[in-house]
């Protein structure tokens, strides 16, 4: 029995570890191997191409657009939701308590698949049906909102919809964290004559650091998963102007039968994400321990 007690913890952990390890390392390794071959429609491991696939992807005009869009989307989406979420939380926190139903409403978009709410967004953003026409009818004739039809602006439509979906969620995170700010420190600061803005800047926002971490991790993970958003809203168009690395990979692997190129793009995406996120996670979490 004692023997069992000693080994049960390790044994019970094992299935999850093995499953995660296989899905992550095993499959990523296979993708890496494929990226070095000359596979087209089917995988083949008899002819090696070396790193030239990577060069081909890197020099591809669509990949350039995909990377640029990924940067625009990632920065604006994470930054936008954090900013809006924080401002809303600070605004709402002092005056009223957002409990129950209102908080659930703020969180609802986050609980819905974008494939589904994307339908409404297509309507809102369509110049023939949505906002633009509504404003024309209400008398604002010169109002223009046809970004979704313009190749250089369509990606910002994806950003707007994404920010809509997640801002309420970030706000809920910050609201909870604001409640946890030490009241004694706050009243001490007020006694010492600290002004409202400086209290926020020097005491409250630093105290929100763990909430920032959670928000950035969750939002970062969603930004990487943004495939649904693009599929629902623009399908990569107009042309390939809202291409993302994930749509690029899908197109080359499954529609164009350029599997090796698709695999190369996937590996490049992986490396990019790791370079961006892993250092941040480690620096933050090392402090936490």
């Amino acid at each position, binding site marked *: *029995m004692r023997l069992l007690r000693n080994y*049960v*913890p390790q044994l019970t*952990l094992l*299935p*999850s*570890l093995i*499953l*995660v390890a296989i*899905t*992550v390392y095993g*499959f*990523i390794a*296979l*993708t890496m191997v*494929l990226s070095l071959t000359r596979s087209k429609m089917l995988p083949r491991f008899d002819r090696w191409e070396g790193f030239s696939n990577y060069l081909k992807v890197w020099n591809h005009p669509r990949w350039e657009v995909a990377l640029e869009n990924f940067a625009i989307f990632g920065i604006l989406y994470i930054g936008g939701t954090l900013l809006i979420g924080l401002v809303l939380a600070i*605004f709402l926190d002092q005056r*009223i308590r957002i409990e129950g139903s*209102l*908080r*659930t*409403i*703020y*969180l*609802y978009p986050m*609980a*819905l*698949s974008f*494939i*589904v709410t994307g*339908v*409404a967004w*297509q*309507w809102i953003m369509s110049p*023939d*049906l949505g906002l633009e*026409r*509504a404003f024309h009818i209400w008398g604002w004739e010169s109002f223009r909102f046809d970004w979704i039809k313009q190749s250089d602006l369509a990606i910002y439509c994806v950003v707007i919809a994404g920010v*809509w979906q997640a801002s309420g*969620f970030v706000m*809920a*995170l910050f609201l909870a964290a604001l409640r946890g*700010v030490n009241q004694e420190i706050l009243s001490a600061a007020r006694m010492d004559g600290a002004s409202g803005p400086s209290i926020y800047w020097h005491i409250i926002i630093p105290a929100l650091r763990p*909430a920032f971490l*959670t928000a950035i991790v969750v939002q970062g993970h969603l930004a*990487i*998963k943004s*495939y*649904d958003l693009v*599929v629902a809203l623009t399908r990569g168009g107009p042309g390939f102007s809202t291409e993302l690395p*994930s749509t690029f*990979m899908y197109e080359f692997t499954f529609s164009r039968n350029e599997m090796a190129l*698709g*695999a190369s*793009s996937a590996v490049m*995406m*992986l490396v990019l*994400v790791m370079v961006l996120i892993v250092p941040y996670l480690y620096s933050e*979490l090392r402090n936490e*321990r």
Partner: protein
Amino acid sequence: MARAVTTRRKILTTAVAWTIGLLIFFPIYWTILTSFKSEAQAINDPPLFFFFDWTLENYSVVQDRSDYMRFLWNSVILAGGSTIIGVLVGVPAAWSMAFVPSKRTKDILLWMLSTKMLPAVGVLYPISLLFVQFGLLDTRIGLIMVLMLINLPIIVWMLYTYFKEIPVDILEAARMDGASLRQEILFVLTPMAVPGIASTMLLNFILAWNEAFWTLNLTAANAGPLTAFIASYSSPEGLFFAKLSAASTMAIAPILILGWFSQKQLVRGLTFGAVK
């Protein structure tokens, strides 16, 4: 940050808070509303906000044309199946990490969670290759496995944060009284763990229900859930707008209702345990 505030300010901010709530809810509201309009009313000039001839026609057309019920059933099976299997695999792991922590526990947990940050495209091809090899393409069982695997880190993480809150003293007291490991788990641990497990299951059900990347890429007509069903409609401009809204409404209704009746768990689940 409670401070004395005047009534007028309070009313003002309450009003603003609800306005923001309405703005956030608008696309959802609009989808639901449009689903009850005729196709002509859906693209009417000016937009109709409430006063129009409510109709259920779209719902019956959608059902007739593309067998909505089958997609719904697939969604239920995929989300439910992957959740149950995921929790079965995840509970022992979370239990071990929460109650018998070792030096590596935190690292293992972080590592598991960090794998969620990796883009899914990195493993898309190998998984679809496996699916072809084993004839799993467009089958429910294959997709259940994939959904379970991709959400497993979140399940373990959520369960771990819940289990962490269970006081260890009680377990030790039970052990002192001579409870065996089996009794300890069955009569002491389980009753206290059930709420956490339920919240985790709710969150995971929602995540799996909404999953689009894998369902779009690995299924077709046979095992496709609601996300695949809606994405399969081409651009809604013109004719199909009301029908598409009806289909969307039916896809989000279960989550809206489920979420409303379990608000607490929803909030906690969606914020990954940060908001209690």
